[in-house]
Structure formats: C-alpha cells, structure tokens
C-alpha cells in the first residue's frame, strides 16, 4: 500500500485546497518522473476535482508530463532566443546521439526529450535542462559531450 501513500503524503504536506494542486503534481513528478492515470485519479479524489480538470492542469505545463519519461529527461528550450541562437543544432546532436525527437523516449528508456518554453537562460542561449540541471551556451559538440557523460 506504500504506492497510494505517495499522493496522500503529498497532500498531507501541501494541503488539499485548490492552490495546492500544483505543488502536489510537482511532488509526484519528482518522485515518479511523470503523472500516471492512476495518480491523476487519486489526486482528483483527494482534491474533490474532476479527473479531467486535473488532467487539464497537468497538460498545460511542460514540467508535468502525463506520459512515462526515461531515466534522464532532457528539456530543450524552444523559445525565440534559443531558437535564434542555434536550438536546432542542439536537437540535431540529440537526434544523432539518441535517435529521438521532442516528445520521444530512447529505445533503451534512458532518455526522454522535450521541447519546452523559456527556462530563463536567454542571455546564455541556447540552453537546455537535463534532469533540471541547466546547460548553457550549447553547441552541437558540447551537447554530444554532455550526453556522453550521462551515458557513461
């Protein structure tokens, strides 16, 4: 029964008012990497919201995935500055190394790639996050190296 407690514990920690929904969703993603159908339903029950509404909230945010994620989650910024400063090269490097495009998970389940909106690194564009650790001033070459580190 420990599994059910993940949601209950998060609710205990953050409360069950409407404004606590986001922290609870974040907490589950932190622990399980994504929001499964079961978790979304449990959360809806705890908050007495419809499960469609909880799903709607989760899908608004890139950081609240509702699909299973790989062990490492790469979030490449797709917003305008990163786009102008060479986001495509970053995606190319990832494609060449891992054979995935945004929205996909590598066949071995080690990496998921997401294109996300601004991560606040415009002055150091292009930028990406790997498991929430920021990497900045990216080029094709240094992205290859970063992925090598995670693969080793």
């Amino acid at each position: 029964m420990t599994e059910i407690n993940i949601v209950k514990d998060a609710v205990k920690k953050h409360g069950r008012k409407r404004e606590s929904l986001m922290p609870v969703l974040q907490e589950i993603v932190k622990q399980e990497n994504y929001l499964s159908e079961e978790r979304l339903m449990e959360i809806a029950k705890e908050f007495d919201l419809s499960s469609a509404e909880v799903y709607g909230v989760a899908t608004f945010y890139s950081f609240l995935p509702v699909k299973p994620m790989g062990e490492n989650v790469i979030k490449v910024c797709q917003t305008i500055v990163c786009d102008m400063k060479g986001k495509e090269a970053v995606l190319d490097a990832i494609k060449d190394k891992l054979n995935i495009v945004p929205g996909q998970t590598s066949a071995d389940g080690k990496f998921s790639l997401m294109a996300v909106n601004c991560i606040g690194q415009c002055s150091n564009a292009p930028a990406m996050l790997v498991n929430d650790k920021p990497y900045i001033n990216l080029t094709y070459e240094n992205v290859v190296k970063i992925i090598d580190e995670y693969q080793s």
Partner: protein
Amino acid sequence: MPEMVNLKINDISVSVEAGSTILDAAKKANIKIPTLCHHEDLCIAGNCRVCVVEQKGVNALKASCATPAEENMEIFTNTNKVREARKTIIGLLLSEHNNDCLHCYKNGNCELQSMAKDYLVDSDKYISILKNYEIDRSSPSIIKDDSKCIRCQRCVRTCAELQDVNALAVSGKGSEMKISTFMEKPMDYVVCTNCGQCVTHCPTGALVEKNYIDEVWDVLNDPSKHVVVQTAPAVRVGLGEAVGLDAGKSYTGKMVTALKMLGFDAVFDTNFSADLTILEEGTELLTRLKDKIENKKDVALPQFTSCSPGWIKYIEHEFPDILDYLSTCKSPQQMLGPLAKTYYAKSMGIDPKDMVVVSIMPCTAKKFEANRPEMYSSGYKDVDYVITTREFGRMIQQAGIDFETLKDSECDSILGKHTGAGVIFGATGGVMEAALRTAYEIITGREVPFSNLEVTPVRGLEGVKEATIKIEGCKAEWKFLENVELKVAVAHGLSNARPLAAQVQNGESPYHFIEIMACPGGCIAGGGQPMPVNNNIRKKRTEAIYNEDESLQLRKSHENPEVKRIYEDFLEKPLGHKSHELLHTTYTKRKKY
C-alpha cells in the same frame, strides 16, 4: 435604485446598471455585436475576441463582452479598424477549422459559419493549419469532432457551471490547446451524463448529437415493420423553432399530423406514460412514507425522481451510495416502450419482434438510456431509436411538409391520451406538481390546495425551489399522514442538484420528495431541443407548456381514462407484479474519477 452608468455607443446615448459590460449596453441600444465565446448562461471568458470594439481616445480594441461599461465612454462598434480586426480573427479561426461546411451536421445553424458569411473572409489569406483529429463517436448520444472546435470553451463552462460534471476540460496550451476528456478517453468511458447541454451551447459542429435519422427512415420504409412513435412533453413546445417558427407555442396537433404523414403506423404520446409514471411513482412515495411513519421501517427517504436520464447517470457517478433514494420507476420513455411491445402488440395481434418503437425526445441522454442493458423488459429492446426534436424537425423538412399549415390530429389509442399533468413533465417542477396533484387527492380525496391546481412554488427558473404542504383531513387508510408537513424540493441543472444530493448523502435532507431534471429549465431546454437556448426562450417554452396544461379538461394523471384502462386490463395496480416487471428498473454504481 441601482447605480447607473451613462455612455455612448455609435453616438447613441445609453444608460446601464453599473457592472454591465459594453456588450450589455450595446444590446440595450439595439446594436448587435458579434460574439462566439460569449453565452448568457455562462461566465465571461473573453477568449475569442470577435466582439472587439473601439473606444474613443484609446488605441487598443476592447473585447466588449469582458469590458465593463464606464461613465462617458464613447464606443464605436463598426469602424474600419473594428471590422478589419474581426475579419482577421474570423480568418484565423477558420484557418484552424474544418471548413467542410456543406457536409457538416450544423450547416445552416453554425455561429462561425454565419459570421464568416457576414464578414466575407478571404479564403486564401491564411494557410490551413487544421490538424488530423479523430472523431469520437463512442457515445450513443454525442459526437465530438475536434476539427470543428474553435476552443471558445462554451462546452467546458457549460459542463462545469451549469452541470458541475466537468467531463470536459481544456488541455495543453498554445497551438496544442484542445478540449479534452480525462486522458483523451472516449466520451462513453468518462463521467459524461449525455445531457447534451454542451451540444446546445456549442457554436459550431464540434459537439453534436449522434443522429439516427436514416435508421428511422429505413424502418419507416420497411413494410414488414410496425413502427410506433412517442413524443415527449417538451418536444411540442420546441418543435416550432426546429421548423423555423417562433418560440413559445405548443404544436401537439400539428405534430401528430406530421408524424402520421411521415409514415408511423401508430402515434403515441409520452405524456400518457408520464401520467402512468405519476401513478407508479406517487404510489411508491406513499408506500415509502407509510413504511417510514407507520411501520417504522428504515426506508430511503427522500425519494428522488428518476425521469431524467442525465440525472440518473450523474447520481450513478457522483453519489453511487444513495441510489436507493431514487424512485425505481423507469422514465416515461422507457415505460411506453415495453407497454407498446407487450400490451399494445398483443391487443393488435402484432408480433413484437416486428415492432419498432421510435421516441422523439428533447434530450440526448435518452439515446443512452434506451441502450441501457436493463431496458429489455419486453423481451426485446424496449425503445429502438431515440431522435431529438432537432432530428425530428429535419425529418419534417426532408419530407417537404409545410408544418405551419397542417391540421391538428389526435394521438392513437391506447397509449396516446394524456392529461395536463403529463404535459407539465416537460418543465422544471412539473413532475413534482403532477405528483402533488395526484398524491394529495389520493390521500385526502380533495384537490391539492392551490388555486386552479397551480402549485406555483415549484414553478419558475430559480435553481432550487421548495414547498411545504400540510396534509389535513386524510382518508382512513392514510391517517398516519394527518398533519404531516410534506416537504418537497425541485432542482434543475445538475449544479443545483448537487447540494440536494449531498444533503441526502450526509443524512441531513429535510425533504420527503425531490424532483431533479438535469437540464436548466427542465426538458423544455434539454440537450435535444432547438438552438439557441437562453432564459428568454426557456420562459417562452415553459409558458407554452403551462398554457397547454390549462387548456385541457383533464389535468390530473389519475383521471387519464387510458391509464385507468391499462390498470384494469393489464397492469392490475400500481407497483403490482406486472408493473415491477415492465415499469421499474435498477441502477448501476459508476466510477467518479
């Protein structure tokens, strides 16, 4: 006196209550501003921007539906800047819209289409970025086609505000934003009640009823089939609008003529089975009261009405622990079906396997109800096809019938006679009023103590209505009810039903009998009625219903001669063995999440 705000719209001075929007003020000045996301039943969204207007001295255009009118404002609704902006907005909406209007179910009754017509949007200005969406046809009641959705969110607000169901929500963002069910599950899987209010509030063809027009034509053209039809009380007050006439008139006689012209072998009336419902449901209530008060038994009270299939599915999902409180009576539609296939079939010497029961309903949830596994008590599917008032209107048009000039005719016997009590089933409070007219008379032998039988406290569009009736001068067998204050409540719109159901769940309900209709206003504004719908139209249809009741000689269900006859010939007595077999049902616990 409310505080007033004075402003000018297109140089016309207008004065509105503080807090009114520019759109309200324009309406008062008889100036039409186009809207899409706005609906007077719903909260302000301000997301489509098509209602933009120009304010003198202000550069940016304002969404008139979401901007409060202010003192001395000078608003212009028809400048070049405004027209160009609207044209751009409509053009952009169309660039994401499935523009196959000629094959669309809403062709001719689409707010986006009519706006495109008014504003002459260039076809080649924007490239189409329509995505490939899969049409959800899983529900027996509602079809959801995202390719026609303009994301105005009227459906989402309807499902949340009017119905408190929240089966639909906004998912994603930006260009990925869409209207979703939970995890994009099919409509027949989620908590949708099939009420169809999203359908009547959708400005385009994104949400429409699943239509069975061709199936009905097929059986009408099959000489081996004996096809009978029943029409719900509210259909006759909505049908006029469906064939292009004004709201507010009842067309029972013309409707029956039209049905005969379409080729139905027998025309019955759901009003008949509404009267029958009162006998069954009223007796059920009195039995529960007797068990509780006289026999001190632990029975489920208050009793909830069970006529509205949207309400039934709602309570099954949301309050599965209090299903015992529902009357076990089937809805009038589902009472008439098995009687046609048993009693009527036998009396006519027709094999029920060759009989088809079609019902015409103001409702989309009735389509689901007819498909419930419990609804085979005649040994066959009790009601074969359910079509809405809108589908019926379309059949009349396809048949080339000039509805307005039709002569009146009467329903066939023996499932066709009705009283005024059956008619008022179509409006919120009507089932309660009909039940009180009969129950009070059964108990006391006297008419219900309201002038002209009008139980006014349960009438009208207030969300929750209550009445208390003191029972005095009981007949001997009902002595236990002497001086009892019968407390009743009526709610329409599922968001108004929730608090009453919650009270029951918490054991705090002060009532004996509660009527719930899923749709705001009751069946007269059901999910299968003509569009548009608003409170003005609800009032007109309601008035037509009560006028019909008043015009009838018989206004109490127990006085219906055909109801009396069916008990003598066939059913024996209310809640008798045959009734239980054919007219009562069971409910299913469903998941809330």
